[in-house]
């Protein structure tokens, strides 16, 4: 069921918010031993918020489409009185005194918080294999990774535990788990969603966005948490879809390659116009983004680096790399980033949106992800963190795992990418 369908049932009294919350809690408890999607389940908060939602609807107070809808927050969104670990031992006992901006907005919208989801330690990795809280497992096959770093949020949505969940994306951390778990993951334009009260990783590349079951649901969440005003209704017919001639179609698994070609074929059937585009060196952008990420993450976490034993091995290795990047290289990386942003402007003279696969391969088994796989998982998504452009990953069904189709738009062009995503959505689920 979608958010809109459920919202209609709430208003016609076919279901209550308390019933929805109890159903969600029951599903979470049932799935938790299998998937480990949550670090904290907020049962009391959920039932209290749900009772308030029912009471308000009964008195004619309607806060909009998220009123009474169960959701989850990645465990780096600060929540007053509720432990916020960032998936780390460092913050294991951190109980914030204030709420982050997104939680405040979702509470104002009447949404019901079911819990805080599992994540890669400090959002610094894409596997969600977490040495402190255990691996989050993929709902489609629990022997495989969920992807990360927002893997618990993706698993909670794909595993039908909540209607939507919030994540963050610094180098693909919304889009990668969305692709691996088979749900919609939207990384909006940089800073379009207020990051106040979100524990940072890379201050100039962290993005906040939703995981949902449908494209329309992602739009409803965006309306509640940001200044996003839908400007929808453009037909895919005649839409100029940029298909990168370089890098983005290299080294794809056969399943990903076939699914991507099928998506292009379907878009063509719907009347889209394909434009081959050569993108300003995406490999260079990946390098630039890595220099920035390493520097900013180590700068933020430096006060805790005296507690080396409390970091996971993979995260500590990244933090040590960051300490060895020079200030000169960091500044030059930011200058190069600006240069590439300018070069990217020419892409939009020829294309309305750009299509790429989200990840080049299907989710690997837990425990079998090496450094090379980690880097290649971010290859197709990280450039758009450096550029700050909106990008959505939608699931394409295959005979095996779902595959992500990434649709990228110009700055503040969320409506454009959601139009195209929605046009392909019904077909993509077949």
């Amino acid at each position, binding site marked *: 069921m979608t958010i809109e369908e459920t919202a209609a049932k709430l208003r016609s009294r076919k279901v209550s918010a308390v019933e929805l919350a109890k159903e969600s809690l029951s599903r979470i408890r049932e799935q938790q031993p299998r998937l480990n999607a949550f670090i904290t389940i907020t049962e009391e908060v959920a039932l209290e918020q749900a009772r308030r939602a029912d009471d308000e609807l009964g008195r004619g107070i309607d806060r909009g489409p998220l009123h009474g809808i169960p959701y989850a927050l990645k465990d780096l969104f600060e929540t007053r009185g509720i432990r916020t670990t960032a998936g780390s031992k460092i913050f294991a006992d951190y109980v914030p005194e204030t709420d982050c901006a997104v939680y405040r907005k979702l509470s104002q919208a009447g949404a019901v918080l079911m819990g805080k989801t599992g994540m890669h330690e400090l959002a610094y990795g894409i596997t969600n294999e977490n040495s402190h809280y255990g691996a989050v497992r993929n709902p489609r096959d629990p022997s495989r990774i969920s992807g990360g770093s927002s893997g618990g949020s993706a698993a909670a949505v794909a595993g039908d535990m909540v209607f939507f969940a919030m994540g963050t994306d610094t180098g693909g951390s919304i889009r990668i788990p969305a692709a691996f778990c088979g749900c919609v993951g939207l990384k909006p334009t940089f800073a379009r969603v207020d990051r106040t009260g979100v524990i940072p990783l890379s201050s100039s590349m962290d993005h906040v966005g939703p995981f949902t079951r449908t494209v329309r649901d992602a739009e409803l969440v965006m309306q509640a948490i940001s200044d996003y005003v839908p400007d929808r209704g453009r037909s895919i017919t005649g839409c100029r879809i940029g298909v990168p001639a370089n890098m983005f179609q290299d080294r794809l698994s056969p399943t990903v390659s076939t699914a991507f070609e099928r998506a292009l074929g379907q878009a063509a059937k719907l009347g889209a116009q394909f434009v081959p585009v050569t993108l300003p060196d995406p*490999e*260079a952008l990946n*390098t*630039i983004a*890595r*220099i920035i990420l390493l520097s900013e993450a180590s700068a933020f976490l430096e006060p805790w*680096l*005296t507690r080396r034993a409390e970091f996971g091995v993979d995260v*500590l*290795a990244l933090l*040590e*790399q960051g*300490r*060895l990047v020079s200030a000169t*290289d960091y500044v*030059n*990386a930011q*200058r*190069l980033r*600006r*240069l590439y942003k300018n070069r990217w402007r020419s892409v939009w003279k020829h294309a309305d949106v750009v299509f790429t696969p989200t990840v080049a391969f299907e989710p690997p088994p837990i425990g079998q992800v090496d*450094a090379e796989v980690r880097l290649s998982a971010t290859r197709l998504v990280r450039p758009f963190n450096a550029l700050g452009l909106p990008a959505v990953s939608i699931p394409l069904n295959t005979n095996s795992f779902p595959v992500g189709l990434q649709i990228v738009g110009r700055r503040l062009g969320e409506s454009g990418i959601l139009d195209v995503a929605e046009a392909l959505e019904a077909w993509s689920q077949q």
Partner: protein
Amino acid sequence: MTDWIALAAARKLDIPPDDIAKITPILDALEEAFRPLVRELPRAYAEWE
């Protein structure tokens, strides 16, 4: 190539040499990819305006 162990020592960073040895190939590869990009930067000061 940069001597990362010497660099860490010069900056008084408390990173064990064994740890640095493990991340050296990654840092070397990153530096090799990044150094040519820096040459793309314009010399003009226009970018600061």
